[in-house]
């Protein structure tokens, strides 16, 4: 788990840049991931935490339906949008 390497702002920026998620400001940041014209995943990103607490990191991964390892890869770059769509397809829209 690479939670210590990231700020919650990194998670938000990555979700915006790689997955096209648009966040709404509120008490925390919330955003939906659209897949095949439907909202399939909703992530909550707390404001201003570094390092990201372990269970919070895991909870964000789970909201995107990713394992912690896959979430590490999303943040570190190997996991791109196409691969994420493949994962979602297999886990949500079977």
């Amino acid at each position, binding site marked *: 788990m690479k939670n210590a390497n990231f700020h919650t702002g990194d998670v938000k920026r990555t979700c915006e840049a790689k997955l096209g998620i648009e966040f709404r400001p*509120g*008490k*925390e940041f*919330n955003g*939906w991931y659209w*897949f095949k*014209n*439907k*909202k*399939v995943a*909703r992530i*909550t990103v*707390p404001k201003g*935490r570094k*390092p990201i*607490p*372990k*269970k*919070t990191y895991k*909870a964000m991964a*789970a*909201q995107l339906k990713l394992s912690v390892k896959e979430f590490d890869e999303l943040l570190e770059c190997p996991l791109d949008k196409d691969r994420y769509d493949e994962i979602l397809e297999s886990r*949500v*829209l079977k």
Partner: protein
Amino acid sequence: MSDQELKMLIKESVREVLEEERVAQQEIERLIKGVARSSGKSKKIFPGEIIKIHVLPTKKLTQPLEAVLETDDGGYIVRTVDLPLYAYGDDPIEAIQNLKYEIESLYADLMEDDNFSEEWLNCKHFLKKIISEE
């Protein structure tokens, strides 16, 4: 008045005073609890505990929503059992308060339209059932 009558009178007076004191003490304890409850300090919350959420910041629930509180690297994370939601806080009260906002925020999102996966439509159906707009 005989000595016997005087003793009886004193005993009766003492009993009355003690009873008044007991009632006053109960009233004080009730008031202290009421003040503590209104300031959110009525009950200590411990990690691992199942919390029942009865009210949201602006809405009421017709049945309580269960959530689990855990420590998280110096802070606290609280997760709903029936919805894919969590919230973080520096203390348990803050975490629970943030979760209440999260529930309302999700409800507002879900009420916007029906472009959701089946999982989220089920969440919408569940929340519509338990959230009272009154």
